[in-house]
C-alpha cells in the first residue's frame, strides 16, 4: 500500500530503474562489492540473484577478471578517497564462467556508490578484431597523442618491435623518442614536414632513415593523415610506416650503376672527342711540313730566277721539313710503343752532362733565331745507365717546348746536377707558364694547354707524354713547377748506375 501511494505521489524512479536495460547498483562506499541494490538488468547480465549479491560481500571481487582486479580496485580506492566519480572498463566473469566486458560508471552518494554497468563485450570484440587485423599488417601503425601535442604516440602497433627493435612501451615513454631516433641527416626535413602537415592539415607522404635498436639504418616510408578538431583545424596525426630499406637499396644501386654507366659514356665520348682532335692535329702537323716540301720543290723546279745561294737555302728548307715530318712519324710510333709498353731501349753507360750539353748546342740556332737567351750549367755526375738516343730525345723535347712557349727576349736555362742520389736535369723557361689546373694533365697523351690552343702554337700533344714514358722506362721521374706569366721548370730525376754495375759495365 505504502509503495502504491508513493507511486501516485511522484514519478516511479523505482519502476524506471527496474525496467531499464542498463544494469544498475548501489553499493557501500566502505567496501566495494557490498551491494545494497542490484537492478534486474544486472541480475540478467551476470546471473547472480539479488539474494546471492547480498549474501556474499566478496562476490564482486570474485567476479572480477584476475588480470583487471588490481587496477579496478585501485581506481575505486582513489575515487573513494577523493569522493569523486569513477569511470573504468574491465572484465567480469559471470555465474556461468563467461567473460563479460563492462563499462562501469559510479558516483558517490553519501556512504554509497550509485553506479551502472554497460555490457561492452561486443564492442571490445570488434575492437580486438580490428586491432588484430592492424597488428598483423607488415607495417607500423601509430596515433599521435591528441591532447599532449608533444609527439608521444598514444598508440604504437607492436610491429615496431620486430621492425625496429623498440617496444611500443619504450617508444611511448619519451615524447621525443621518435625524433631522437630519426637519422641525424634526415631530422631537419622530418621536423619541417611534420610542422608543415600540422599547419596545413594536408596528408603527408615521406621517406626518411631511422636508426633501429641494433644500430641498423632503416628506410621508412611514412604515410600520415591529419585529424581535424570540431572546428576543422588540424589537430593530431595518425598513420603508418613501412620498412622500404631493401627497395631503397636497390633504387640506390640502380642509380649508382646508372651514374657509372653515364660516367663511362662520358669518358668514351671524351676519348672519342680527343681522338678526333688528335687526328685533326696530326693532319695539321703533317700538312705543315708537307706544304713547305711541295712548295719549295715547286720553287726549285722553276729555277730561272734562283741564285745558287737561294737554291741551297731552299734545299735546306726541304731537308728541315722532311726532318720535321720524320720526327712526327717517329713520335707517333714511339707513343704507340709506350702505350703498348714495348719501348725498345738499348742501355749503356752515359755521361749525362755531355749528352745535355750536346742537346743544348743543337738548339742554339733555334734559340738565337727567336732571340731567346739559352744558358746551360752542368755539374759532372756519376755515370747513368740509359739509352743515349732516347735520353737525348727527352732533353730535346723539354728544350723545344721551353723555346716554343717562351716569348722573344725571354730565357731558357738548362742545369744538370746530382741530387738525392739521382742525376737531376732541370729545364727552366721564362715563358707563359701553365695554369695550375692543367698541370696534372700535362703528361697525358694528346693534352694541349689552353694557351697552346689559344696562341696557335703547333704540336699534337705527344711530346710530354712520350718524355714521361721514356723517363719512367729509365726508372726515373719527371715533374713540373710552373707559375702563370713567370715561367715553367721541368725536372727529371734519373737513377745513378750502381757502383758494381758501373764496374761490370766498364769491364
Amino acid at each position, binding site marked *: 500500500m505504502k509503495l502504491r501511494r508513493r507511486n501516485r505521489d511522484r514519478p516511479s524512479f523505482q519502476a524506471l530503474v527496474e525496467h531499464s536495460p542498463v544494469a544498475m547498483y548501489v553499493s557501500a562506499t566502505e567496501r566495494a562489492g557490498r551491494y545494497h541494490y542490484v537492478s534486474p538488468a544486472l541480475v540478467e547480465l551476470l546471473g547472480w540473484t539479488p539474494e546471492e549479491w547480498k549474501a556474499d560481500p566478496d562476490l564482486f571481487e570474485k567476479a572480477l577478471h584476475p588480470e583487471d582486479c588490481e587496477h579496478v580496485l585501485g581506481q575505486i580506492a582513489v575515487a573513494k578517497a577523493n569522493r569523486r566519480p569513477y569511470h573504468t572498463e574491465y572484465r567480469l566473469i559471470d555465474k556461468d564462467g563467461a567473460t563479460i566486458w563492462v563499462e562501469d560508471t559510479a558516483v558517490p552518494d553519501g556512504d554509497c556508490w550509485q553506479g551502472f554497468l554497460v555490457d561492452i563485450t561486443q564492442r571490445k570484440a570488434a575492437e580486438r578484431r580490428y586491432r588484430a587485423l592492424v597488428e598483423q599488417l607488415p607495417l607500423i601503425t601509430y596515433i599521435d597523442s591528441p591532447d599532449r601535442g608533444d609527439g608521444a604516440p598514444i598508440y604504437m602497433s607492436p610491429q615496431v618491435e620486430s621492425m625496429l627493435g623498440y617496444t611500443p612501451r619504450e617508444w611511448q615513454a619519451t615524447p621525443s623518442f621518435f625524433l631522437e631516433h630519426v637519422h641525424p641527416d634526415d631530422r631537419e626535413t622530418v621536423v619541417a614536414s611534420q610542422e608543415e602537415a600540422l599547419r596545413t592539415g594536408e596528408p603527408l607522404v615521406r621517406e626518411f632513415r631511422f636508426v633501429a635498436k641494433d644500430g641498423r639504418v632503416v628506410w621508412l616510408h611514412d604515410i600520415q593523415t591529419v585529424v581535424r578538431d570540431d572546428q576543422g583545424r588540424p589537430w593530431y596525426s595518425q598513420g603508418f610506416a613501412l620498412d622500404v630499406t631493401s627497395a631503397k637499396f636497390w633504387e640506390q644501386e640502380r642509380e649508382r650503376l646508372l651514374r657509372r654507366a653515364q660516367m663511362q659514356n662520358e669518358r668514351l665520348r671524351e676519348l672519342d672527342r680527343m681522338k678526333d682532335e688528335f687526328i685533326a692535329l696530326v*693532319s695539321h702537323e703533317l700538312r705543315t711540313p708537307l*706544304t*713547305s716540301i711541295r*712548295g719549295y720543290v715547286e*720553287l726549285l723546279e722553276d729555277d730561272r730566277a734562283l741564285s745558287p745561294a737561294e737554291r741551297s737555302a731552299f734545299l735546306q728548307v726541304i731537308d728541315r721539313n722532311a726532318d720535321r715530318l720524320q720526327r712526327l712519324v717517329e713520335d707517333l710510333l714511339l707513343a704507340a710503343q709506350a702505350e703498348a709498353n714495348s719501348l725498345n731501349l738499348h742501355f749503356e753507360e752515359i755521361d749525362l752532362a755531355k749528352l745535355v750539353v750536346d742537346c743544348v748546342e743543337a738548339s742554339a740556332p733555334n734559340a738565337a733565331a727567336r732571340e731567346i737567351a739559352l744558358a746551360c750549367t752542368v755539374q759532372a755526375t756519376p755515370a747513368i745507365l740509359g739509352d743515349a738516343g732516347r735520353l737525348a730525345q727527352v732533353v730535346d723535347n723539354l728544350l723545344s717546348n721551353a723555346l716554343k712557349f717562351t716569348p722573344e727576349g725571354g730565357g731558357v736555362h738548362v742545369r744538370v746536377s746530382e741530387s738525392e742520389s739521382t742525376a737531376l736535369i732541370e729545364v727552366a723557361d721564362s715563358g707563359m707558364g701553365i695554369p695550375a689546373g692543367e698541370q696534372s694533365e700535362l703528361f697525358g697523351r694528346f693534352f694541349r694547354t689552353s694557351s697552346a690552343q689559344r696562341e696557335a702554337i703547333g704540336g699534337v700533344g705527344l711530346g710530354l707524354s712520350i718524355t714521361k714514358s721514356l723517363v719512367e722506362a729509365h726508372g726515373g721521374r719527371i715533374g713540373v713547377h710552373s707559375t702563370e706569366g713567370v715561367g715553367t721548370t721541368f725536372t727529371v730525376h734519373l737513377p745513378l748506375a750502381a757502383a758494381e754495375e758501373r764496374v761490370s759495365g766498364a769491364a
Partner: protein
Amino acid sequence: MAEDEPDIRLLVATLLERWGYEVAAAADGHQALALAERRWPVVAVLDVSMPPPDGIEVTRRLQALGDVPVILLTAHVDEHSAARAAEAGASGFLTKPFRAQALRKAIWSVVPMTPEAA
C-alpha cells in the same frame, strides 16, 4: 700576307714576288692588321691558324675597314673551316699543301689584273 710558319711565309712571299707583287709579310694577326693599315693591300693572303687574332678574325676586321679580297690558307681540313672563311668574307680558300698554280688562280679570280699580266 701573314703566316706564322717561317718556311711557308717565305714560300708564299717568294711566289707572290715572282708574280710581280710587292709583298709585306707578317707572322701573326696583329702584325698583319698593322701592315694593312700602313699600306692598304690589293689582296691579302692569310693563314687561318696563327697567333691571335687568327686569319678568320683578321679577314673580318679587314672587311670592316675597307674592301679587300682575302685568300685564306689552312692546314685544317674540316667542313667548318671553309664555311667560317666564307662567313668572314674571304674570297678564296686553299688547304695546305697547295700547288703554286692553285694560289695563282685563286688570286687571279679576285684580282684580274696582276702586275705581271698588265
